[in-house]
């Protein structure tokens, strides 16, 4: 237990880094995911291709491979960024593919007749998205996007494999140094907390955007 109480500072710093990675990765994924989703439905064919190739590629690439390529590969072509930036960028790039897919399937889950109805009463493209499609689609998007958030939070642990001092890294370091397995329980509890907090926020958001029929 001493290993934990004596090194609360290390653990706290680890939690902070994990949270920073998660938030940065998630925000990046959200922004890039929205841009990609717009690309995928745009009338410009090359952008649609870029969108679908991106999603197909980054959804299927193991996060660890991406991390290693960023951290150890980029310096070989003369691009050096800090470990933290590389990790956050990898999380954002792979998360964006999942966000994009959630948005697309959310929009596709809306009954076809809704879009037809919106158009037939004379709403423009933007209006029918704004007042008919998105309010309904958002509801279907919340859960998968929350899952992406949790996925990014858990995925940020992989950054420890390339040497970013986040929660998992601190845990195994303290465990190696002080032979204190209890650090694993503490770290596990913290991850649970992060995931549950995400799920709770998601539930709240889902109720907010819910439509009472």
């Amino acid at each position, binding site marked *: 237990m001493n290993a934990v109480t004596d090194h609360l500072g290390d653990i706290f710093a680890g939690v902070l880094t994990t949270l920073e990675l998660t938030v940065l990765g998630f925000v990046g994924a959200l922004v890039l995911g929205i841009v990609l989703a717009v690309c995928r439905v745009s009338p*410009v064919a*090359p952008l649609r291709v870029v969108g679908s190739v991106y999603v197909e590629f980054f959804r*299927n*690439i193991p996060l*660890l491979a991406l991390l290693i390529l960023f951290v150890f*590969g980029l310096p070989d072509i*003369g691009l050096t960024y800090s470990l933290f930036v590389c990790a956050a960028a990898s999380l954002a790039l792979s998360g964006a593919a999942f966000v994009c897919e959630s948005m697309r399937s959310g929009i596709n889950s809306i009954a*076809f007749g809704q879009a037809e109805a919106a158009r037939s009463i004379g709403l423009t493209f933007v209006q029918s998205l704004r007042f008919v499609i998105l309010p309904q689609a958002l509801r279907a998007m919340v859960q998968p996007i929350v899952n992406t958030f*949790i996925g990014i939070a858990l995925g940020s642990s992989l950054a420890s494999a390339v040497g970013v001092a986040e929660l998992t890294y601190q845990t195994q370091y303290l465990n190696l140094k002080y032979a204190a397995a209890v650090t694993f329980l503490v770290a596990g509890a913290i*991850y649970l907390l992060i995931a549950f907090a995400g799920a709770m926020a998601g539930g709240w958001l889902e109720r907010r955007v819910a439509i009472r029929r």
Partner: protein
Amino acid sequence: MSAATVLFDAPGPRGRRRIALASAAAVLVIVAVIVLVVVQFGRHGQLAGDRWSPFVHTGYLRFLAGGVRGTLIATGVGALLSFPLGVLAALGRLSHNRLVSRLATAYVEVFRSLPLLLLIYAFLLALPRYGLNLPVFWKLVVPLVMVNVAVLAEVVRAGVNAVDRGQSEAGWSIGLTYGQTMRHVVLPQALRIVIPALITGLVSLLKDTTLGYVVSYPELMKTATNLTAFTHLLIQTYLIITVLYVLVNVLLSQLAHHLERRMRTAPRGGGQAAEQLEHETHAATTTAVR
């Protein structure tokens, strides 16, 4: 056909011109990005022939093929263990027995929220001190299964809930017990519904085996690291294995899409159809596992 396709009118001549212009601009930007990447690679000598030619050498290829084998074995064993256990956990969660259902729920919720890497470190670094020292392969596969059981349980539960309630009511009304109804009526249909999702689960299982890197189990990622230590061709090796991973996963995802499409057009109901349905479920799950 999706909602997106009716949202705007067919473009007129001016609209078409604009789209053509935007397309040209987009192509230009894409080409520029590709050229930039190639130039960046070239400037640092990463495109030199002798940095790529080793990979047509059979020795290197055989080495990487060993890694692919390791990955496939870990994925296969992981899937073989976690699919049935996932179904079991889902049934546990749906069980009418309060205790069983609580336990299963707790398991699923906890293990869905733990990072796999943390579990692997626990098996690698902490548990051996308490006398639990598994062979390297199982240090990767056991945590992998523990996490994936939780994920798959949720998938299967969603499938069971998606089966029309009338089906289980019909089962009970002809005198089947809860267990019989589950086994002969609900589960076969539920599994069929979730097959695409299960294959997607297989993709994530395969991606998770890259953590063999941490426990030094010789799957593709670890093999690549070993190769890199020897050749120092880091970027080339990792680009090649990344493409390999993406290829295998894209193939699996395509299979999932294909099954999903076929399912949508498949007939529903009827005695013969039900038999056909169960047969197909069986065939598809075995394909997925293999």
